[in-house]
């Protein structure tokens, strides 16, 4: 049996550029994801400026041509989902938290871990290459429907389209490799005594998300190979002449729907951790939430055609998918109720992470209820492809990718960097972001109800949609977006300055129970030193009546 490595890497290259340590790899994913968020946010700025002030040159970008516009919205969507939400919520948080929270020294396959990040980075290089080739970046929407996506005569991006598809394929491979690592680590390497119901909820959520991802992405990989060959060498799988364009839609959405649950589950896991810690209360219905999550995961495979209600699918299938879509709101609703029940009667501490967690519940609720109108195929006939859909999914994705991420960053920053973030700046960032966010998207619900179509570059071409009232709301939404982007500056300042000059953080600044707070802040190589912790109880034993002198009861303490 080989010796375990106690010393760790010694030089800059093996420590930071080619790391094997899960915490460093997590930071690579986190910083890359944050950078991509800035890129995606800039794209949103450019296209929203075009919508608010059509035809005028956008400061910092230039004039937005129709081709530019299509490319901006396509890449904004793709980047936010594949290169921001997934790397930060699953790869960064999973990599950082899993070994720490289950009490071991690293992932089971550190070299596979490093390889996943390298493939992920390669996917970003390929994506950026697509912006600079002749014809520019792909503009066929993140859903990439053929025949637009497989025919360069239609999409005008003969190089951009295959490069975009290749970037997505590489990102998928990176997450498959990472997923196998995460699942195997959590299944096999838990601390002695940590039984199934002692695993912190965020870890369960990340593992279930990885399983959902792995199970749903297969047909899309097959379809992507077919689409790539259609684009590059002239096969006819998704053409009208020899194949079926509708097949791509099914392949894409069979993955696309579970994908949204892949991103929502880790965000909910983060929120659960935070609300338990900051209400000093045990999680309400741990087993209920767990089994509901399993049910949600399984059900999520049966709802995908609600994205295709108006594509000409068989109406009998539309009936079935309507029913399943409305059904799936029940388990999600149950999880929200469980979170609220956890808060009820708790000793609430409104620290910055808690503010973000509470905002998640409120905003995601709005997103969820607006989904009901879209899940019913009758109303969806009107709403499909309008801004109502767009506002709905931003009210779900923004809480997931942005609010959930900020909640996690503010909560685990002391553990990651050994210093505390500034609370005042945190609160300014919070309120600025939340108010701006609502100001952007509430008007978009109303614009959607008024009939505003998606993916239109200039509404002056549609007189019915170009009334002064509607244009005023577009301008209002765009100005709110600029406010949103400006309010990220306090965060960036806070984040980078606190890393070096924040108040030094103790190991457990929030008095939380889970095992990661046992390690020093920041944890050294090997996390816990020579003796890895054992687990004696569940993760949410706060304010336990048997424990008189303290309102929390860490998992590793024998009594």
């Amino acid at each position, binding site marked *: 049996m080989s010796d375990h490595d106690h010393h760790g890497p010694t030089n800059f290259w093996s420590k930071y550029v080619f790391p094997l340590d899960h915490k460093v790899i997590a930071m690579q994913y986190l910083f890359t994801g944050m950078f991509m968020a800035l890129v995606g946010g800039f794209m949103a700025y450019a296209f929203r400026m075009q919508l608010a002030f059509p035809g005028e040159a956008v400061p910092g970008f230039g004039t937005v041509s129709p081709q530019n516009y299509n490319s901006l919205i396509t890449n904004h969507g793709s980047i936010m989902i594949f290169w921001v939400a997934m790397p930060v919520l699953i790869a960064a948080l999973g990599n950082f938290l899993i070994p720490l929270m289950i009490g071991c020294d690293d992932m089971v396959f550190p070299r596979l871990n490093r390889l996943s990040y390298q493939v992920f980075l390669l996917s970003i290089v390929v994506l950026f290459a697509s912006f600079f080739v002749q014809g520019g970046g792909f503009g066929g929407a993140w859903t990439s429907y053929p025949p637009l996506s497989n025919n360069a005569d239609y999409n005008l991006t003969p190089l951009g389209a295959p490069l975009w598809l290749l970037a997505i394929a590489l990102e998928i491979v990176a997450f498959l490799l990472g997923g196998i690592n995460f699942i195997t680590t959590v299944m096999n390497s838990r601390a002695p005594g940590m039984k199934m119901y002692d695993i912190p909820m965020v870890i369960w959520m990340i593992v279930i998300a990885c399983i959902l991802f792995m199970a749903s992405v297969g047909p899309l990989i097959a379809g992507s190979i077919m689409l790539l060959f259609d684009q590059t060498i002239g096969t006819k799988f998704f053409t009208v002449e020899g194949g079926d364009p*509708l097949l791509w839609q*099914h392949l894409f959405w069979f993955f696309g729907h579970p994908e949204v649950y892949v991103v929502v589950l880790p965000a909910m896991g983060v929120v659960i951790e935070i609300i338990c810690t900051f209400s000093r209360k045990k999680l309400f219905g741990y087993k209920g939430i767990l089994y509901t999550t399993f049910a949600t995961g399984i059900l999520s495979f049966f709802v995908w055609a609600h994205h295709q209600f108006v594509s000409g699918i*068989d109406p009998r299938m539309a009936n079935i998918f309507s029913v399943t879509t409305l059904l799936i709101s029940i388990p999600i609703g149950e999880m929200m109720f469980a979170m609220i029940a956890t808060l009820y009667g708790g000793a609430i501490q409104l620290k910055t992470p808690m503010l973000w967690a509470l905002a998640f519940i409120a905003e995601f609720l709005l997103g969820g209820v607006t989904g009901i109108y879209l899940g019913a195929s009758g109303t969806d006939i009107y709403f499909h492809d309008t801004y109502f859909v767009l506002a709905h999914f931003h009210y779900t994705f923004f809480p997931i990718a942005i609010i959930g991420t900020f909640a996690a960053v503010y909560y685990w920053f002391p553990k990651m960097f050994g210093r505390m973030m500034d609370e005042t700046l945190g609160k300014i960032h919070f309120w600025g972001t939340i108010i701006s966010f609502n100001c952007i998207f509430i008007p978009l619900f109303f614009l959607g109800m008024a009939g505003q179509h998606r993916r239109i570059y200039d509404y002056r071409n549609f007189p019915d949609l170009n009334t002064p009232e509607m244009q005023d709301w577009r301008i209002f939404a765009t100005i709110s977006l600029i406010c949103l982007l400006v309010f990220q500056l306090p965060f960036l300042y806070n984040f980078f300055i606190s890393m070096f000059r924040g108040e030094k953080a103790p190991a457990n600044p929030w008095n939380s129970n889970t095992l990661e707070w046992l390690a020093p802040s920041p944890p050294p190589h090997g996390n816990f030193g020579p003796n890895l912790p054992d687990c004696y109880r569940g993760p949410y034993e706060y304010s336990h009546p048997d424990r008189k002198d303290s309102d929390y009861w860490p998992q590793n303490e024998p009594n």
Partner: protein
Amino acid sequence: MSGHSTQKYFKVYFALVILFLISYIVPEMMPDNKVMVLLSAFGIAIVKALMVCAYFMHLNTERKFVWYLLISCLTMMYLFYIALVPDIMRKEGHNWKSHIEVVMPENHHGHDDHHGDKHENTEHHEEKN
């Protein structure tokens, strides 16, 4: 020390070879009998796959969890297939007809003597009910 356990592997192997020969010869002998072709080619393929899983991969002595995992994935693919059948598998339904015209390209058939006369034309006019 190729003792008793390797004997078991050889037995399984010979069974697999015999099954394979049946699945290969029967469709050659009766290509028009769809049921026999299906049973022998695909039915035997399933049996062979299960045998390789159970005996070569040792899944019959492994924890049941692995079977459940692999069978779940297969079941999901089957459900995916069923959900797509109404849309993709058929060219027409009660109230619709596919207007996709399948045109076989010319001169790619090589020595095939159905040269270019296989055009699958679906009707181009709307069928109103």
